[in-house]
């Protein structure tokens, strides 16, 4: 991850923070999940991450994240499922 990537991610996060002051509340979680996805693909492109389980999680997020606009319940279920997977990953990484 080079300095240019870091500046872009910082810009995205700060712009999202500013946007969240005026935008629908549900956009907050969406921006956080998007940040995770952006970060993952930068690291993947750099060869700094290759865990297939993490990639599956990111793919699941990218596939379902827009349900926040149409089906909030589905969106929440997706986040809960991702957390469940992340717990397994955290435990297995010890």
């Amino acid at each position, binding site marked *: 991850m080079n300095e240019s990537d870091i*500046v872009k991610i910082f*810009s*995205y996060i700060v*712009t999202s923070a*500013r*946007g969240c002051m005026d*935008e629908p509340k549900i956009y907050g979680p969406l921006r956080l999940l998007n940040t995770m996805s952006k970060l993952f693909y930068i690291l993947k492109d750099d060869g700094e991450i290759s865990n297939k389980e993490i990639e599956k999680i990111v793919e699941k997020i990218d596939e379902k994240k827009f349900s926040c606009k*149409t089906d909030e319940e589905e969106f929440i279920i997706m986040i809960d499922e991702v957390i469940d997977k992340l717990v397994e990953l955290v435990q297995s990484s010890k």
Partner: protein
Amino acid sequence: MLSGIINVILKRRSIRNFKQEEVPKEVLLKLVEAARWAPSGSNIQPWYFIIVNNKDILEQIDSFSPGLLGRPPSIVVFCSDKRMAFEKGGKIGKEVLYLMDIAMAAENLMLQATKERMGTCAVRSFNVMAVKKILELPEHISPELIVSIGYAVKEVKSPVKRTLEEISFFNKWGGEVK
């Protein structure tokens, strides 16, 4: 059997995942030509259309546009000229009409893009100050809406829409349409 303009209207979807395939310049200009012919209050046309297909500028705008998703190969930034809107349209021109004009122009562009088998998405989640600086816009020109343009990775299913009976009435509030 659906045909004509309604077919195009029903096919349009908000696309948030694009193929990394450039949109030819002449196609982009054709889309902007459709936008140019949108209705405009008092025919003021207080708009400017900035077509961005330069990768470096796209990346810069992307960094300050959380709503711009799926790495579109091109965007059109719909800008307003509020000075012109006020000078020719007065208070209502400056406060209301210019936004309606922009919205109608954007829909024209998106429908033309749909007809050209391309995907679009109207985006307002961007930082106005940042985009203005990146595009070197004059003080009185403001970016109001970004429309991403490209070829969709996959088809998007139809969203749920409120029914005609629910949202429309004949002659007065509550007048049944059936």
